[in-house]
């Protein structure tokens, strides 16, 4: 019953499907070649940075990469006891810090942790200067007195290989030391071993079982070291700054030790990640939710004023004779041909208290000279300037949609008995709604991410979330927080777009045609 049809063949006997595929493959390859320059450009300059930004908003490798031993040691510390961590943490931290200072990465770590706890940046900087001058020099002297072989890096090299199991700290410290020395382009054999290696060795010897080494050198060192005066690294750090003896500092480090953190996102919504879980920021520090709210609210106001101002102009444009319409269109487009900065600056001239508008109002006695209007460096200024700047983005889609509404609709409505107003409101307006939709989406999305104009005319109360993002990108250098804020903004826009699609339908957005 179910006989399979033989494949259709072309004239020369190859299967038709294969032949078609081959024919289409060339078409596809050609199409791909045509778009590929732009595709690569976009991938490289647009998609990749966005992906990087999304990643940065959760990425937190700096703590782990800079002080890996400390992070490891802190895992065993129970912050609930609210006591300073044990010596093992300070020993690990000492080792990490010495190498971090050599690599000059301790200040970056300090800045990073400073976002979460103020004061840590200076604490790290200060400690970086002092950590090389710890009393661990005494260990070095003592070991060298015991056997000069300790002054030779070759000894360390051999032991870090053969006795790694019994000397974990020493082996790991020696490996990092080698890296650091080689990174400088020096020969390790020509260097003197650093104090930090002796400190690690001392610690290992103290904790290894007595006489358990294969090397007699080590067994000797172990029995001798028992008589050394131990140096408390906790005290050494405590001598630099009291803060190192504050458990809260260590809790902060522990909380942000993970490679990925929700911390930036929590910061973006005025929360913070503490050792005790997610908490609200202090009343005075909460600004981002307010800023997001203000950005949305002001973008909405700007969009509405663009509709109110743009609709009549677009209507006129669409209904004037072509020549006049073209002239008017040039006037509408004129702002596009002037620099954004020039336009914004001219608003500063117009709107300031001793500016043109206030002068005219005072001259006309609409306002008293003593009570000149505050039109700039507040929300009013931002709304006025941005409405002006974004107006063409409302007018153009409106115009192109209105252009497609046949005049016969309104005529038909009038011939059916509708007054001018009814004909407009019941017939013309509903048909122009797709233009309002397109213009609003355009203006709103542009407004929500606007930065230069609010920066220039917004003062403190008229700035947007984007200004905060710019601040974190260029001034505070807290890129993670900037990325988290940007990510939230991006998803807010996508959500709006999605909602709009659900309610109005994106097919109803027309930019003409």
């Amino acid at each position, binding site marked *: 019953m179910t006989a399979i049809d033989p494949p259709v063949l072309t004239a020369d006997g190859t299967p038709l499907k294969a032949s078609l595929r081959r024919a289409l493959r060339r078409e596809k390859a050609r199409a791909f070649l045509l778009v590929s320059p732009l595709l690569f450009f976009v991938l490289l300059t647009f998609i990749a940075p966005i992906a990087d930004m999304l990643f940065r908003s959760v990425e937190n490798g700096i703590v782990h990469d800079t002080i890996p031993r400390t992070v490891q040691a802190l895992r065993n510390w129970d912050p609930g006891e609210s006591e300073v961590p044990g010596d093992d943490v300070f020993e690990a931290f000492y080792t990490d810090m010495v190498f971090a200072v050599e690599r000059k990465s301790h200040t970056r770590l300090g800045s990073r942790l400073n976002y979460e706890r103020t004061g840590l940046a200076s604490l790290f900087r200060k400690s970086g200067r002092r950590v090389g001058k710890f009393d661990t020099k005494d260990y070095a002297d003592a070991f060298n007195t015991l056997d000069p072989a300790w002054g030779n890096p070759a000894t360390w090299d051999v032991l870090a290989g053969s006795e790694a199991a019994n000397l974990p700290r020493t082996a790991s410290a020696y490996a990092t030391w080698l890296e650091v020395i080689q990174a400088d382009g020096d020969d390790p054999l020509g260097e003197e071993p650093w104090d930090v290696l002796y400190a690690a060795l001392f610690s290992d010897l103290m904790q290894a079982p007595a006489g358990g080494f294969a090397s007699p050198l080590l067994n000797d060192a172990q029995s001798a070291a028992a008589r050394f005066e131990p140096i408390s690294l906790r005290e050494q750090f405590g001598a630099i700054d009291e803060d190192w003896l504050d458990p809260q500092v260590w809790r902060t480090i522990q909380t942000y030790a993970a490679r990925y953190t929700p911390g930036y996102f929590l910061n973006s919504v005025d929360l913070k990640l503490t050792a005790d879980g997610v908490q609200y920021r202090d009343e005075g520090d909460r600004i981002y939710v307010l800023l997001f709210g203000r950005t949305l609210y002001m973008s909405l106001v700007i969009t509405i004023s663009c509709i109110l101002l743009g609709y009549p102009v677009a209507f006129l444009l669409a209904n004037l004779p072509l020549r006049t319409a073209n002239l008017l269109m040039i006037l509408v487009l004129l702002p596009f041909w002037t620099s954004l900065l020039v336009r914004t600056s001219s608003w500063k001239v117009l709107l300031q208290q001793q500016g043109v508008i206030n002068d005219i109002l005072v001259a006309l006695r609409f306002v008293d000279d003593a009570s000149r209007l505050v039109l700039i460096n507040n929300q009013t200024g931002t709304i006025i300037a941005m409405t002006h700047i974004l107006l063409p983005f409302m007018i153009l889609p409106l115009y192109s949609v209105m252009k497609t509404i046949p005049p016969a609709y309104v*005529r038909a409505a009038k011939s059916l008995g509708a007054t001018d107003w009814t004909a407009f409101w019941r017939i013309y307006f509903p048909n122009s709604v797709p233009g309002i939709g397109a213009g609003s989406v355009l203006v709103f999305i542009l407004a929500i991410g606007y930065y230069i104009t609010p920066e220039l005319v917004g003062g403190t109360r008229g700035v947007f979330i984007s200004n905060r993002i710019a601040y974190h990108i260029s001034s505070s250098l807290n890129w993670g927080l900037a990325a988290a804020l940007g990510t939230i903004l991006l998803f807010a826009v996508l959500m709006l777009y999605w909602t709009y699609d659900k309610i109005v339908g994106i097919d109803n957005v027309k930019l003409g045609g």
Partner: protein
Amino acid sequence: MGASRTADNFVVFEKVQKSYDGETLVVKDLNLSIAKGEFLTMLGPSGSGKTTCLMMLAGFETATHGEILLDGKPINNIPPHKRGIGMVFQNYALFPHMTVAENLAFPLEVRKIGKTEREEKVQRALGMVQMGEFGGRRPAQLSGGQQQRIALARALVFEPELVLMDEPLGALDKQLREHMQFEITNLAHELGITTVYVTHDQTEALTMSDRVAVFDDGRIQQLAAPDVLYEEPENSFVAQFIGENNTLLGKVESIMNGNCTVSLDSGEIIDAKAVNVSSVGERTLVSIRPERVEINKSRLMEGAHTLKAEVLEFIYMGDVFRTRLRVAGKDDFVVKTRNAPDQVRLEAGKIIELGWLPDDCRALDA
């Protein structure tokens, strides 16, 4: 007197002129009376002023000069929405954001007619155009013919006494157009509505109208019933615009009893009916319909003038034969003969003689 007067002069154009730029007249001195219940067609080439006249009647254009009267009242200063004139537009102008029923209810709504009465009238109007089922659809979901019907129903739903139609069938294919022509005329006559119909399609004008006003150059060239228009065109424009026509140029030789003899430029003499010529020696354009040319000499009148003609081309068209001949030096002279069993099929190259009844050959203005 008053009653019959308004019945005959339901719509009156009185010395109406229209200019858009103040330099040229688009409509020149238009005088026209339309009787109640009449189906009048304005026919003419594009730019002849017919649509402008319609728009002035609808109120979308104002007359530069003259008066337009509707039912005895001047309407120049009445805005379109108060004129109560139904209108069907070229591309239907159905409101795309409303359903069919909402489109139809719109004129009733703006007239503040109650919901139940409104629905009843909408249903009746839809029934009238056999679209009763389609009330819930959007215009975009309908075919061209269906949209046309809805546009018609919408123009009629508020029971206007006058309906204007601006090339309403232009966008339909031939078959549907012919069907709709029939439906529109039937409906207009059934409801007794006065209709002013604008078209550039002469077949449409001839088949649908009670009277046709042929427009050219801003004037009515002839206003007459379709048969009169076709058979008795008053000037050469109408003769050439309506139907197919053979024309010959010549000079009037003599006029007698309404007939005249014309000597063609080639020197031959023919008989014609003096329609638009008044004096001997006047230049004239003689027009003969292709189907009125006689090639069978025995059917001609005694002593009728005949012309020699050379057959250039014979085209078989099924119901008719179309023969192209060289007559009096012109080689676009066409003769149409019925495909009857005894009809001769002329072969190219043959020389024949042809003639016509003087009544069928009209001497018009040159």
